[in-house]
């Protein structure tokens, strides 16, 4: 198991957002996390690369326990790509510079190697011609595809997606999902927090349903969407489908 989560709890002050999550994710698995807003699904995702401190419990990524005090978190994060709802591209850097930065600084790639890798990734996400553009001049869908390319440039073993299409105009959602689908088919291990039930059903190997900080139910997309066992899952699906 490349990701193992044991009794993960997370509190903000007295507010317990995650109340004991257990799950494990295998290599090349695509896991979609769904649930109502405020259910803790983004917090869960952010605990996987320690963007949120873990209150108690354990997260083990590829053999590294994130709660181990001796852990060098930067090294683990380099293996985990993350894509944010708000893209978070670096606005003062061009598209290619956005992609080249971390490989050069963290992986010590030369400028030429980083540029070559960046160009290949831009081609892959269909934005080869935008190499020298600045993020501010791109559409949301293009920005998110650059953000995916930027994460992939570190050649991560895992990709985390935090509602990657929620900030996009509806007509731009498809281009981002298409890139993610390609990635899934190449065997990338992916954890995707999403409201795109079509994507979860089609691309996901497994769906986790979170509500109130609890992992209420999990199963294959067919199990969750066509035959949910828990009433909370049924209620949620009734509201959105």
């Amino acid at each position: 198991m490349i990701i193992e989560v044991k009794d993960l709890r997370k509190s903000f002050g007295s507010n317990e957002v995650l109340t004991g999550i257990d799950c494990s994710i295998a290599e090349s698995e695509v896991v979609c996390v769904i649930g109502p807003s405020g259910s803790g699904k983004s917090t869960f995702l952010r605990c996987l690369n320690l963007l949120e401190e873990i209150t108690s419990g354990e997260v083990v990524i590829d053999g590294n326990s994130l709660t181990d005090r001796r852990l060098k978190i930067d090294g683990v994060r380099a293996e985990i790509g993350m894509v944010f709802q708000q893209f978070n591209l670096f606005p003062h850097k061009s598209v290619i510079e956005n992609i080249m930065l971390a490989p050069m600084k963290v992986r010590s790639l030369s400028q030429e190697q980083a540029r070559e890798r960046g160009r290949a990734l831009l081609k892959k996400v269909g934005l080869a011609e935008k190499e020298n553009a600045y993020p501010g001049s791109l559409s949301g869908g293009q920005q998110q595809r650059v953000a995916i390319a930027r994460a992939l440039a570190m050649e991560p073993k895992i990709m985390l997606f935090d509602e990657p299409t929620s900030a996009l105009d509806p007509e731009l959602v498809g281009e981002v999902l298409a890139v993610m689908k390609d990635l899934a088919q190449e065997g990338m291990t992916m954890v995707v927090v999403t409201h795109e039930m079509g994507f979860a059903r089609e691309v996901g190997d497994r769906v986790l349903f979170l509500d109130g900080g609890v992992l209420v139910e999990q199963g294959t997309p067919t199990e969750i969407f066509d035959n949910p066992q828990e009433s909370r899952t049924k209620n949620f699906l009734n509201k959105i489908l």
Partner: protein
Amino acid sequence: MAEGILTMERLLGFNWAGVIEFLPALTAGLYYTLFISVVGLAIGFVLGAFVGLGRISRFKVVYALATVYIEIIRGTPVLVQAIWIYFALPLIIQYTLPSVLAGVIVIALNSGAYIAEIVRGAVQSIEKGQTEAGRSLGMSRHMTMRHVVWPQAFRRMIPPLGNQFIISIKDTSLLSVILVPELIFQGRLVAANHFNAVEIYTTVALFYLAITLTLSGVLRLVEKRLESRS
């Protein structure tokens, strides 16, 4: 009552051409004003950058030291700081600082405190998502600050920094009380000996204005250059 009214004749009646004779003395003063401004602000900026980052440090001691420094400087007048460093400090350290060095120290320490607050504000104004994006790529705290947050924050610092630079340049005039031979110090020497206060002090004022207007112009150019790159 005619002598109470400002007329063109009265203004022209002064010996404006005679100022030329005293330009070397004033230029010597201008040199010190510029020297102390440039060196003092350069040190002040470096100091301010570190102290400003200290104000957002997770280390409590660093934060406390930075805060104490800023509060002391902001809470006392520059004039008092200058007098203290030049006349009081030597009695404590048993060493008399040359007045120009004391002047540089005053401008550096004083501007450093205000620049620290400018730096802190600018760095904190950069969205948290930028840091998260940098860190999630495996970049260290330091790398993320240097390559992601700082360049963006720096752009936001330019207008308030320009303000502070202008204030500090004008503050150098107070250093005349600690005998720094800068612009207004020289002006007072000349005016006292030649009874041409109107001509000399007007010229001195124009010199200050020339420096600050040039600086404003340069800063506007820098801002435009940075803007066009994104």
